[in-house]
């Protein structure tokens, strides 16, 4: 039974529950941190400020110090730039490419669809960390390389997802009507398909973002990543992991930072407003 619900708030279905709001708030917090980091960091990120290492939390160093005696607070704040920035850039690129190709494949069909699908499937079968290792071994590690590599790794998944959605939408009568009207592929994709898959695509974007944050920390763990003295959170965990046994904040804090970001993205996705979550309702 359908219940039509007038009223603008209900109409757009933007209502979100508390968990979703908390998730969004934490994400927003890290975004702000990423942008504001250079201005709010108490110390330069590479400066050795304490002769002790793996220092505890103190009024001077709120989050303790790392293995060289650098201020962890500053390093985590700056790390947000890299973790959030690289992941965001990579996921945006991956999803843009994947979704565009996915929609094109769904709409055009013919030989283009199976050929592209097979090719991307094959690409998908290469383990991502391996691929990262080979790339970094051959061209070195820089922000651009990381972003591109990760985007290449995640575009096939995004493609697969978007294609499946687009195939469903493509079968809808309004797309048929557009086709009968004589509309071109670009119009069909942009105006008829895309608005109807944007919700799930956004959710997928978020999930992929989480995977990329984790992949990035995995790559950092294996020694690839941003240039010193900067470090993304994964690299912070790695370089300080020796202090895990005595629970120094140097390793705990970046771990919590990673977890807080990924968990809140998950929280947000799981509690997205209905309007975004539903495919096309």
């Amino acid at each position, binding site marked *: *039974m*359908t*219940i*039509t*619900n*007038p*009223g603008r*708030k*209900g*109409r757009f*279905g933007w*209502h979100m529950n508390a968990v979703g709001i908390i998730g969004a708030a934490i994400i927003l917090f890290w975004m702000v941190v990423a942008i504001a980091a250079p201005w709010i960091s108490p110390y330069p990120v590479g400066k050795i400020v304490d002769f002790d290492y793996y220092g505890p939390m103190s009024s001077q160093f709120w989050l303790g110090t790392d293995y060289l005696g650098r201020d962890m607070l500053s390093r985590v704040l700056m790390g947000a730039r890299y973790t959030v920035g690289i992941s965001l850039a990579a996921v945006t690129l991956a999803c843009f490419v994947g979704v565009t190709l996915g929609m094109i494949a769904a709409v055009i069909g013919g030989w283009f669809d199976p050929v592209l699908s097979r090719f991307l499937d094959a690409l998908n079968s290469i383990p991502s960390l391996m691929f990262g290792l080979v790339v970094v071994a051959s061209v070195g590690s820089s922000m651009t390389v990381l972003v591109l590599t990760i985007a290449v790794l995640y575009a096939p998944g995004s493609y697969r997802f978007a294609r499946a959605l687009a195939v469903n939408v493509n079968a*809808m*009568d*309004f797309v*048929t*009507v557009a*086709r*009968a*009207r*004589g*509309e071109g592929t670009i119009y069909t994709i942009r*105006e*008829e398909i895309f*608005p*109807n898959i*944007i919700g799930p695509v956004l959710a997928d974007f978020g999930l992929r973002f989480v995977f990329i944050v984790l992949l990035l920390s995995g790559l950092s763990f294996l020694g690839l990543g941003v240039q010193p003295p900067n470090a993304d959170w994964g690299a912070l965990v790695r370089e300080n992991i020796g202090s895990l046994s005595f629970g120094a904040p140097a390793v705990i804090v970046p771990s919590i930072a990673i977890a807080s970001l990924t968990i809140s993205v998950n929280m947000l996705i799981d509690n997205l407003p*209905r309007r975004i979550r539903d495919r*096309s*309702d």
Partner: protein
Amino acid sequence: MGKIIEIRDLRVEAKTDSGRVVEIIKGVDLSVADGEIVALIGESGSGKTTIALTLLGHTRPGCAITGGEVVVAGRDTVTMSEAQKRALRGTEVAYVPQSAAAAFNPSKTIMDQVVEVAKIHHLMPLPEARKKAVELFKALALPEPETIGQRYPHQVSGGQLQRLSAAMALIGDPKVMVFDEPTTALDVTTQIEVLRAFKSVMRERGMAGIYVSHDLAVVAQIADRIVVLKGGEVQEVGTAETIINQPTHSYTKALIEAFHPKGRDPDARPESAEPQPILKVSGLTAGYGAVGSDGLPKFVILKDIDLELERGRSLGVIGESGSGKSTLARVIAGLLPAAKGSVAMDGVSLGQRTKDRSKEELRKLQIVFQLADTALNPNKPVGAIVARPLAFYHGMGGREREAEVDRLLDMVRLPKALRHRLPSELSGGQKQRINFARALAARPELILCDEITSALDTVVAAAILELLDELQRELGLTYMFISHDLSTVEAVCDRVAVMYRGEKVEEMPTSRMQSGAEHPYSKLLIASVPKLDTGWLDGLHQNPAISEGMNRA
């Protein structure tokens, strides 16, 4: 005679997606005597299914009973515990669902599902249950009753499944049967068999039943009493006879009114000025799948179709599901290339696909789809939807386009204010009007209407048909009207073509439909449409068209 069912002041609330609580059943009273069949009739959203489900102590997710009682065989299902409800279901009250195709688990055999009630409630040993099931299959006139149970749901037809679902309900010897629109999804010819089977079984066993439907004619055949519902409230109660012949409530009257089409006087139209037909389909063969060596696709849906359509006239294309009538529309619209044959408009042969046709050709021929829900992009406001063809075909922009959108909305009798709404905020009838307005925006000459009223409630559909009729007169449009519903076709078409298994078996003027059909399938199809007459079903066996047609099928 005791009352097997007593519903008193039932109230049900539902929570909308945005969290708002709406009362959808507003204090309904209802009773069913032993051995009586009561029909709940009303349009979608009237609460008929919700009421029926409370008899089984069930509410759909998001709904909750907030007041009243539902006494079935002396016990109130509202206050029952989960375990008590489980014990009730299948044994005291059984349910026959709307779409048996969906209600059968695709991964289990039919027999497993039919005897499941016996298994769950430990009513009898399994072999005995199977034996009983086979007897029920026989009673319900199912073919191969001994072996049909071994099949999987997808291996039997829709009508058979619907009867099998009745068997599934009857196996526990319930005191009450709840039928939830059990024949809505079926073709008319199939509907008859199912209705007959239901009726005879119910009569034989003297069971009480609730029959939920939106179709008054169907209900008239099977129900003793009819309850008319609207907006969660009872509008009128009476015997089937009274409701049909002497409705008192205005809504009931409208329902019955909608059932009697005004009929169409072919001579009221001006004679076609042009000798040339606007659309000429010749030798059309089409289908899906890979094209074989013979130049034919793997699955041939249309075989050698010839059609002509005169300007300003309407042609109805009727047939049951799978007859190929929708495919015909798609081929004409250029959405599916034909394997053989041609489609010509105004004497000019049209390209196979939309991309082979000129914008002008595309503009002149518009198609309107069955489900307005899927035919409108849910993410675009109405104004944008209607405006697109204006921009696309006529290059209109700015204020001119706005004004034209307003004019089109007005033309389909919708308020201008609607232009900012999204499709999901409109009612079914409104959506279908927008759907039509979009086609009109192209300023077409020929509109292909593919089952455009099938998903609508009777009253709403009647209004749409009226609108189409008016527009045709005003704008001189030509319609090709595809439908499985004969009364719809009768209402708006001048001629009617009957499709059967991909072939056009007959074409005739609408006025001759009832009497002049010659092909046995046409006869069967026409005779199978239920009449608003309580004796229609019982009198059917005397109708030669039915028996002859049945034998053929």
